[in-house]
């Protein structure tokens, strides 16, 4: 187990100015893994990346590469390369010279350099762009040049700092697939930073959810989505209804005035807990057979499904269903035992999960940028 650790961050704390950015962080990264640091802006994910790259020194704690301490190794001697948020291509060099930059520093022969540059250009589908000025390229093309430039020097680890943040949605989806493909083909470790949960889920082997300079949860995308450890993770990844509940005994929980059979155990008798129910896991049924009953307050067509906000005893639930119910309709809801996820109470309890202030603009609100 220990042998497989390519990068190991132990007890890292970082304070920038007066604000603690990372607090006692422990994280290891396996060889050839696609790991994503996911969190809202200011959660410390970019700081973690800069620590690994060597642009930043921790106030306390140690960084290990391959079991060796690298605290004093400057960035240019670390076997990692970074894709910067705004690409940071060299404007005075053309595409080929940008890609050759690192190779020239390694004093490779001219033949080697030409061959590698050609390889990289075809890897990122920019064969005919070798002599173009980088300023004349589109955002997506600049992104590809940045990837080619970083991969040309054959790093062991590629660090990507919100690399797709500046691209439009369609391009972003294409690049997600392409990045994943490149990672598999080159067989190197990717450490990817993003605040886009969908990006994290679709690309990663491992997702690290961060908030407030602390790791909240580490797991596979499926684990993170299905078994969030606290209200923050449940809310940040996908949509969630999070309600207060009580664990009556193993496999039986009580919330919203009803007892539900569930599949969670290991809690104390009558322990107060947070209950997560994903909007797509709720079935709409007739009011008289429903476990819960409520009134539809909004209903929005989303293409594949309808998204409804249902008022159940004053608590607003989000429900995604293919069955249309008009606003004002009184409906019943049915929840299967395995759709209920029970979490221990945390400092995030009660902060998330209610859709009472939900509006359509919610989606467009936040595209935060990390400083």
């Amino acid at each position, binding site marked *: 187990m220990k042998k497989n650790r390519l990068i190991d961050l132990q007890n890292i704390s970082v304070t920038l100015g007066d604000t603690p950015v990372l607090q006692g962080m422990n994280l290891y990264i396996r060889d050839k893994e696609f790991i994503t640091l996911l969190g809202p802006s200011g959660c410390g994910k970019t700081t973690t990346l800069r620590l690994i790259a060597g642009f930043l020194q921790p106030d306390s704690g140690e960084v290990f590469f391959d079991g060796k301490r690298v605290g004093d190794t400057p960035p240019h001697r670390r076997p990692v390369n970074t894709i910067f948020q705004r690409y940071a291509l060299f*404007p005075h060099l053309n595409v080929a010279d940008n890609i050759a930059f690192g190779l020239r520093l390694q004093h490779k022969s001219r033949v080697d350099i030409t061959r590698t540059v050609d390889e990289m250009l075809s890897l990122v589908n920019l064969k005919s762009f070798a002599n173009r000025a980088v300023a004349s390229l589109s955002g997506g093309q600049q992104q590809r040049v940045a990837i080619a430039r970083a991969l040309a020097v054959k790093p062991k680890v590629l660090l990507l700092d919100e690399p797709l943040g500046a691209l439009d949605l369609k391009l972003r989806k294409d690049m997600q697939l392409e990045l994943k493909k490149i990672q598999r083909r080159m067989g190197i470790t990717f450490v990817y930073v993003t605040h886009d949960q969908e990006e994290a889920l679709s690309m990663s082997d491992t997702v690290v959810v961060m908030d407030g300079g602390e790791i909240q949860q580490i797991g596979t995308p499926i684990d993170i989505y299905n078994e969030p450890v606290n209200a923050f993770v449940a809310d940040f990844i996908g949509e969630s209804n999070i309600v207060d509940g009580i664990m009556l005994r193993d496999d039986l929980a009580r919330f919203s005035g009803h007892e539900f059979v569930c599949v969670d155990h290991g809690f104390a008798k009558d322990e107060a807990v947070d209950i997560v129910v994903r909007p797509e896991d709720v079935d709409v049924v007739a009011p008289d057979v429903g476990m819960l009953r409520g009134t539809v307050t909004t209903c929005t067509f989303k293409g594949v499904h309808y998204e409804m906000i249902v008022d159940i005893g004053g608590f607003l639930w989000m429900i995604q269903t293919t069955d249309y119910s008009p606003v004002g309709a009184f409906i019943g809801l049915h929840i299967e035992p395995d759709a209920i996820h029970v979490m221990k109470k945390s400092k995030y309890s009660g902060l998330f999960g209610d859709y009472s202030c939900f509006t359509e603009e919610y989606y467009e609100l936040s595209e935060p940028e990390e400083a």
Partner: protein
Amino acid sequence: MTKPQGAEHRLARTQRGKGAWVSAMYALIIFLFLYAPMVVMVVISFNGKNSIVEMDGFSFRWYKEFAENRALMTGLRNTLILALCASGAATLIGTAAAIALDAWKKSLTRSALMVVTDIPMMAPDIVTGISMMLMFVLFGTIVGNGGSLGFGTLLIAHITFCVPYVILSVLPRLRQMDPHLAEAAMDLGCTPFAAFRRVVLPNITSSIVTGALMAFTLSLDDFVISHFTTSGSFNTLPLEIYSITRKPVRPSIFALSTLIFVGIFLLLLLINFAQSRAERKTIR
């Protein structure tokens, strides 16, 4: 209401025509005010006769007289040497200062520093000149070398008033640059110094050249500060001309002034060219 479209078009065109005519006149008047004195001087410098009203054919007579004037030629040589040294040193110092200012994280300290560096630019030349003289004399007296004004003091003074202009030229370019460029270079294997030389420097070269040319021009035509910070031992061209003009002015001064005007004009063209090139590079 039913006015045909063509009429409106014609109306718009005549209005635009009138506007163009007015602005052309305006430009002409401005140019006349700005350049009429120069033109008069240039014309008279080629006059064959020692008069400003009587014309007597085209001649290089006054240019020859100027070339044979030892004092003026020495002044010209001194001025060029001084301008080269001062602009060179100011460019080095100013560029380094701009880089340091750009790297400064605390914005309050930085803006305070900026104000401090800008003051020599704002202060009247005569104040700068007198205060410099005072400092040089005081310092000279302390080290027991009182009143030794000359090339050294002149050079220090010129560097001082040129540095802010170099900073003013280089700093905005650094600000525009992606702050991650140097990091990207280090990431790819550059030492911090190599990152500066290979990536940062090529991207600010044009603004450094602009700053250097600006410093050179300023040093070349400075009179007031030079007047206070040198003694008879080392005279620049403007000082030499000033001392001559106290006697009746010879047309050779016009010839010299024409040469200076042409020189400065060419330098300004160069500065403009360098600036527009720098701007074109930043357009994404």
